[in-house]
């Protein structure tokens, strides 16, 4: 018997006197060398094995939860409600999620001491868009600094106050306020200008900004009853720029500094816009230190990675890598559209022009400066639209390393940036695989729209035979963000190191569930790199991968690095 495990073997023998000490010792050695389980951790498993099956009697009919370990807590008896109407006048320690409607601070003398308290209105049912909502007054004796108008907060440990039949909420110093959503609809005091970069996605605001662009436009009524004259343009301050739409005449020229009160922010696609209407007050503002048009205009220059659906008046320097004229027929009339691929060092996207540009194919790749173009997205991928040829200026050389082959350029993007940024083309990222979905493998796509058939049926085109395709549906994660990944046929086969018929054979051999389980054995918890394009929306980010590979790592090396980096010895 190996001396090494002497005490451990003795422990086992004390419980299982008939066990062979050599076999027990060998078991410890196997756990340690093959499975990296030190003997003290292998004890129970080995004991179980040598005892034969002596499992504790399962309890029956118990309604307890699954096994668990833990400690204790001394929970406050909080009463959790979702509506104010559920509360009674003497309720204490209540918990509720509300939206803060207004918030004011006043000084009050309490027992001879000058003290600040806050008061205002709050509203229940904050998540339902047009739901029934009840408003109560509240008093905050803290006062808590994280209560701001427009925010949604969870109040834990407040008490109800009833005075002459009127209910209100008392927030004390011990009450916890958790901000769930920062104020997106701040009710700012009138006449108090906000920075453009901090504007909410909807609501009424006041800003001071300089006009960068302005042009008359018409909006055609859908019912054909005529059109409305409007002014479109762009305003900027030092924090950013924003497009505007004025329903009232606006005679100010480019360069004019304006103070605008009561403008309404509306968000179209992913891009906010200011609307000026009858109640909006527009006046010329004087501030000698305010940045001039030239300085402010630089902010409208964006990279392809920053493009957002619905953006207007965008300036960018890009390289055109492909360009072709297309013909299509509309209302029986033949029309032309020019489109192609463009790139900059941050990524790639498409560009379309409604007018012919002075570009021939033999000039490509060609670097151009785009001015005042707009962005539309198709399947989440931005597409720049050029309405006039004079929006495009041909440059002699790119402002970046001209050796860069942008056509095949892939930009490495951190997972968190990918999941929180705009949709992008030509990117790659690395993270750990945390899910291999059960529908990975062969799928049938609708013959009309390529959508995946569910039990032979397309949601749009009904039952059809479908075309066979191969893909993996994964989720990758870095502990901070999670992104779903769909690998196309090529990427899937190269990742698995199989041909399509080998893959079919593998699935036929063991069945779909066991096949997916075998993929998990190869991928789950391991690092992978995926490249392709990303689509980011409210549900999160999705990466459509045309390339994928697993990344091998050396645990011993990493452990040593960690020791050094964190000074763990």
């Amino acid at each position, binding site marked *: 018997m190996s001396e090494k495990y002497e005490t451990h073997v003795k422990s086992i023998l004390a419980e299982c006197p008939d066990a062979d000490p050599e076999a027990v010792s060998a078991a410890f050695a196997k756990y340690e060398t*093959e499975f*990296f389980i030190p003997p003290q951790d292998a004890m129970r498993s080995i004991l179980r094995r040598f005892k034969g099956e002596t499992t504790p009697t399962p309890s029956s009919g118990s309604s307890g939860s699954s096994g668990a*370990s833990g400690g204790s807590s001394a929970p406050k008896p909080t009463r959790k409600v979702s509506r104010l109407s559920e509360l009674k006048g003497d309720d204490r320690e209540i918990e509720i999620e509300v939206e803060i409607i207004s918030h004011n601070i006043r000084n009050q003398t309490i027992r001879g001491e000058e003290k600040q308290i806050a008061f205002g209105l709050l509203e229940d049912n904050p998540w339902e868009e047009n739901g029934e909502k009840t408003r109560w007054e509240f008093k905050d004796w803290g006062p808590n600094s994280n209560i701001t108008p427009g925010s949604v907060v969870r109040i834990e440990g407040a008490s109800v106050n009833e005075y002459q039949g009127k209910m209100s909420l008392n927030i004390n110093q011990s009450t916890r306020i958790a901000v769930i959503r920062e104020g997106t609809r701040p009710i700012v005091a009138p006449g108090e200008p906000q920075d453009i970069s901090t504007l909410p996605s909807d609501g009424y605001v006041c800003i001071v900004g300089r006009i960068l662009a302005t042009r008359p436009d018409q909006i055609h009524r859908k019912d054909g009853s005529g059109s409305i004259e409007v002014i479109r343009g762009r305003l900027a301050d030092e924090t950013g720029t924003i497009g505007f739409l004025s329903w009232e005449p606006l005679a100010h020229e480019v360069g004019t500094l304006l103070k605008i009160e009561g403008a309404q922010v509306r968000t179209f696609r992913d891009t906010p816009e200011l609307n000026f209407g009858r109640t909006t007050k527009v006046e010329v503002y004087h501030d000698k230190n305010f940045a001039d048009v030239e300085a402010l205009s630089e902010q409208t220059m964006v990279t392809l990675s920053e493009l957002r659906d619905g953006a207007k008046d965008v300036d960018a320097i890009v390289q055109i890598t492909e360009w072709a004229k297309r013909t299509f027929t509309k209302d029986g009339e033949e029309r032309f559209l020019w489109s192609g691929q463009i790139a900059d060092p941050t990524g790639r996207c498409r560009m379309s022009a409604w007018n012919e540009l002075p570009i021939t194919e033999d000039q490509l790749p060609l670097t151009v400066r785009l001015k005042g173009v707009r962005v539309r997205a198709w399947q989440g991928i931005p597409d720049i639209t050029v309405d006039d040829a004079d929006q495009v200026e041909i440059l002699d050389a790119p402002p970046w390393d001209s050796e860069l082959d942008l056509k095949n350029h892939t930009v490495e993007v951190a997972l968190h940036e990918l999941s929180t940024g705009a949709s992008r083309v030509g990117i790659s990222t690395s993270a750990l695989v945390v899910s291999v979905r059960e529908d990975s493998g062969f799928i049938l796509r609708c013959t009309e729209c390529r959508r995946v058939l569910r039990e032979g049926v397309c949601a749009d085109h009904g039952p059809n035979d479908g075309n066979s395709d191969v893909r993996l549906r994964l989720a990758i994660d870095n502990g901070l963000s999670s992104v779903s990944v769909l690998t196309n046929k090529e990427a899937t086969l190269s990742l698995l190191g199989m041909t399509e018929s080998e893959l079919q054979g593998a699935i036929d051999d063991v069945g779909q569930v066991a096949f997916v389980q075998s993929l998990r054995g190869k991928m789950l918890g391991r690092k992978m790199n995926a490249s392709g394009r990303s689509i980011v929306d409210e549900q999160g980010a999705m990466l459509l991968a045309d390339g994928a590979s697993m990344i091998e790592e050396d*645990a011993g090396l990493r452990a040593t690095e960690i020791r050094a980096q964190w000074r763990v010895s």
Partner: protein
Amino acid sequence: MQAGTTRAKRQPAWHILASEFSEATLNEKGSGEYDPSFVITKLGAKVNRVVVAGLLERLEVRETSNGSSLYQGQMRDPSGVHYFSVGDYASESMRELTLELVKKIEAGEPVLLLMVAKSKWYQTDEGAIYTSLRPEEACEIDAQQYALWLTRTCEDTLQRMKHFTDSLSAEPTREGMVAAEIPEHMIDGLLVARNHYGDIEIENYTLNIMQALDIAEGRMEAASQPVAAPAPSTDADGESGDAAAGGENEVKDTIVSIIEQLDQGDGVDFETVLTNTVARGFDRTLAEEKLDELSNEGTLHEPRFGWFRIVA
């Protein structure tokens, strides 16, 4: 431009050691039906989903009162044990894997497992909170992959320990945390964790990490510890048959560890001990018997009637 819609996004998975997860006694659940539920650890990790790994130590079926099968298991890493369950709600692939694993465990085969799981918590009537896991996907791994998981988990835990330590000198507000350069994803968790757990000792996590890194580097000698003298024989109570001794010792171990964890100085009451022992898959009558035995043999004492403490 923030909006409430971010709530629908998939929750990230935390690499976490059994010790950090099992010591958590704080949870959070939004009021909405589909709001994610979180377990918040002492280090401020606000955990909905985890990536965990270790030696599969137990996996057995338990018939529930409504006739469905619930598989309960425990998985050991260098820092402690995770408890998990796989029920009828689990995916087909997870249930198939569970059946295979049960066979291996019954045959005494060592199994190293890696799982992506949802964090669950359960509160007893007495207010004690227990954490457990509900695996979504899992696979057997080899020692190399286990070692990699250990390094990732160590690194993430070290990072959390740093944020935790940094947060101690910060104002206990969101603004204070931002000023102390606490990253966004840790702020909420650290704020409520500090409030709930108070002053905590994190030295034990350092020890867990040192051991885990030893294993990852293949330095098994350093990671190995001798065991204490063999457990006292159960013959003392006059039981001659040894048939169920392992199981019974396991009950005793479990009871002792429950009391160890729950005792806040006054001991732990009878009902809490039993509820929690039963919650871990043991028979109530057996648990009552063993609690008595532990008391009689002097492992436990009753400072007042029905409250148990470990004899120091």
